[in-house]
């Protein structure tokens, strides 16, 4: 691992620049979009699909302790939780608490 201030240069170049470059391009691209234009429909769809792909990967290919929970438990908790969320009037608190409760109950039964 590089020492001292060279780590800060690494953070500035490979961290800050590498991410903000895309944010700036997003501002420039978004500047030309009108609210409710066809192009914005497409950009919104791409952004949503990207975020959901990241989200699903967090559940299917988790890092850290969650990786010890079996796949069926992770998918079951998220799936049943989402179904209950849809049936009970789409309250975000329900959509968060139900899957977590199922996961914790499952983890205690399976034992990690």
């Amino acid at each position, binding site marked *: 691992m590089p020492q001292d201030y060279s780590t800060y240069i690494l953070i500035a170049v490979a961290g800050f620049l590498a991410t903000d470059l895309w944010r700036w391009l997003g501002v420039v691209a978004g500047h030309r979009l009108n609210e409710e234009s066809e192009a914005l429909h497409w950009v919104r769809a791409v*952004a949503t699909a*990207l975020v959901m792909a*990241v989200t699903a990967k967090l559940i299917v290919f988790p890092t850290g302790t969650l990786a010890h929970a079996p796949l069926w438990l992770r998918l079951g908790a998220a799936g049943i*939780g989402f179904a209950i969320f849809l049936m009970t009037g789409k309250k*975000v608190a329900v959509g968060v608490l139900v899957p*977590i409760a199922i*996961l914790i109950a499952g983890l205690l039964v399976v034992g990690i």
Partner: protein
Amino acid sequence: MTPESQEPSETRSALSWFFTGMRGITSLPALILMTSYVGFAAFALEAGLTRGEAVAMTLGVWALPAQMILVGTMLANANIAASFLAVTLSSIRMMPMVASIMPEMRTKKTPLALLLFLSHFIAITSWVFASTHLRKVPKEHRVAYFAGFGITLTCTNALIVGVSYGIVSQFPPVVAGALFMLTPVYFISSIWASARQPVVRLAFVFGIVLGPLLALVSPQFDVLYAGIGGGTAAYLIDRYRRKRHRATEAA
């Protein structure tokens, strides 16, 4: 945290909207993100970063997946060009995310430099927050409202990394597992609940199915393929649906 407060919106100043945005720090997504950053502080310590470096990375990068990748490449002793490439490829998604909230956030008078500055504070959590709450704020105050939330969220998490560095090394396994699960289930329910247009719900389904499937085929570019492919498919289906709807209405 609710944008509609006692006073009529026309009489409220930008500063007062900035403070309303700041109060979003006590919202559920903000609290979930804070626990994730406690996890990042533990990971940074384990990886050999100093406290200052962990804080600088949080302020400078402000995207948890990119930060994890950057630390990973540092652990692997990759050179700066390889680190840059790995981080930048994982961050392409920032562009459509930022582009999709710009038309909602800016007015004709908003300076470009201000938007470029504020774009730094857009990451997944603040993107979800913006897509959920911006429309309840009068258009001319949305920049102030987002600035209040975004800047507060970033600075608070940098502070949390600085304070929790070295304190929390590990959570009990059940707690850690539940914490890792909080982020995805929060995104699932909040994005679905805030989806106003059918195209967003279609893209939601495409993304959630294609993400893990493409990860098996192309682990490097899975998210990008799922986003562009799934998003475009959702858009085309929705456009066809809208056209047919218009055609039947006209008939």
